[in-house]
């Protein structure tokens, strides 16, 4: 594991290159015809350009930038949803992407069944999920509904269940896309408390938010990304200031 000590996330000269067909070719027939006519033109779109970035253990690291600047793409790289077109991504430890909250939930199945599906999707074994099961239900406060099909859950209940599954085991890296608005006020407090305790126990938290006060308050360091390039890495207040200056606020 050739990663500097204390670093959990290391990106080296990372590029993400989307290849877009210039003319919208959506069907195979169209593609075949245009290919023969030599009309296929591909445009490149660089979602991330030469990004180098280290995030340390126990840090709350923020990302700021306008829509489409590449923040979500960066999160996807860390969550290994995407593979970089060029460059290298290294992550030490288990990643819990909160963007995957409730992935694979099925409306016809009960909360109980969904816990197992969602959990195995996050890479846990069935056995691990059996051990966690009680405390997941406990945390989500859904004992009365656990054998009811998910379609009769409210959206708040579903989010509570998703959050409880995703955060039952402390991950080394927690990815939070936008600040959590899970359930009612009491549950929000509870989920924030859990994230805080992760941080105190040495987890790294990667946070994307459009709420600048959230970044200032919660993050130790932050990066400002603009058009796929890192403009600034360092103190979160300064990152926010520079970003705000650039958009003219």
């Amino acid at each position, binding site marked *: 594991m050739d990663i500097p000590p204390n670093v959990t996330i290391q990106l080296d000269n990372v590029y993400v290159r989307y290849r877009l067909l210039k003319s919208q070719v959506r069907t195979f027939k169209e593609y075949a015809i245009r290919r023969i006519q030599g009309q296929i033109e591909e445009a490149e779109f660089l979602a991330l350009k030469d990004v180098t970035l280290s995030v340390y253990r126990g840090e709350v690291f923020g990302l700021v930038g306008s829509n489409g600047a590449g923040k979500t793409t960066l999160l*996807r790289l860390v969550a290994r949803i995407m593979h970089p077109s060029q460059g290298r991504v290294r992550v030490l*430890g288990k990643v819990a*992407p909160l963007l995957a909250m409730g992935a694979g939930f099925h409306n016809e199945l009960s909360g109980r*069944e969904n816990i197992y599906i969602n959990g195995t999707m996050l*890479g846990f074994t069935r056995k691990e999920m059996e051990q966690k099961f009680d405390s997941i239900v406990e945390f989500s406060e859904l004992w009365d509904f656990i054998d009811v099909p998910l379609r009769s859950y409210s959206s708040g209940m579903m989010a509570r269940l998703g959050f409880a599954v995703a955060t039952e085991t402390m991950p080394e890296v927690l990815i939070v896309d936008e600040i959590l608005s899970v359930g009612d006020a009491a549950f929000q407090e509870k989920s924030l408390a859990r994230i805080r305790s992760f941080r105190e126990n040495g987890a790294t938290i990667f946070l994307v938010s459009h709420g600048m006060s959230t970044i200032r308050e919660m993050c130790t360091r932050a990066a400002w990304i603009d058009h796929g390039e890192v403009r600034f890495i360092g103190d979160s207040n300064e990152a926010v200031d520079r970003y705000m200056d650039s958009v003219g606020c």
Partner: protein
Amino acid sequence: MFSKKLEQKQPEIPFYDSARRTFPLLDEIKEAFHYRDLVVELVRRDILARYKRSLLGIAWTMLNPLGMMIVLTVVFSQLFHTVQGYAAYVLSGLIAWNFFAQSTSASISALAWGGEFFRRIYVPRSVFAIATVGTALVNLVLSMVPLVVVMLVVHVPIRLTILYSPLSMLFLACFSLGIGLLISSVAIYFPDIIEMYQIVLMAWIYLTPILYPIDAIPPKLLRILMLNPMFYIVTFFRLPIYYGQAPTLKDILITGTISIVTLVVSAWIFARRSDEFAYRA
């Protein structure tokens, strides 16, 4: 509280390095194996969801091919009256064909339409194809029940050779998984391949001896039909059941090679493409 949990179970901390990939197919197999419990959960989900949605639930798995068999028998039995127990002949071919057609279509659409999902979470993509084939296998085993019943009714003897069926099911599953992965690798770029595939399937079923007996085919035409891999897969499936014959070593080698080579080549192509799912979706 959480630190205690960490102490209790301190498994090896996973380390992800995007540069550490040697051979995509090997990586994909390793990852799919790691997520094997998810395959089981997905199969369970598909079957449970089906069971819960309809009144007759699982019974439909058995009634569906029976219904098709009855229709086909009524229509074609006069034409092929030389075939002994035509109903059993049709049904044995039909359940193999249904397995192939349904599992490939389902895995292609799961992979091609899973777009939003693939952008939210990392899961080895092949898991979804494996799970659809797994679900189809459960259905296939269930449809052996009506097959045996029909064989009893039309007096086709049931021999011990039926114990070879797991081997034919394995070949059928490997071939179907292979074709599903192969077409999915194209469907990432062009989702309308799925529609096209349905038409291909329609033609393909007539190029496979499902409805008509093999000895009714003129030798010239037979040579062409023998270029169709499903010809061997379906025949191999029927052999120990309907014909009551044990497959020869040659049969096993031919059918086994077809299905395993298809699977390996397709999985290799798929693994090299699987990064694209998050990009294209």
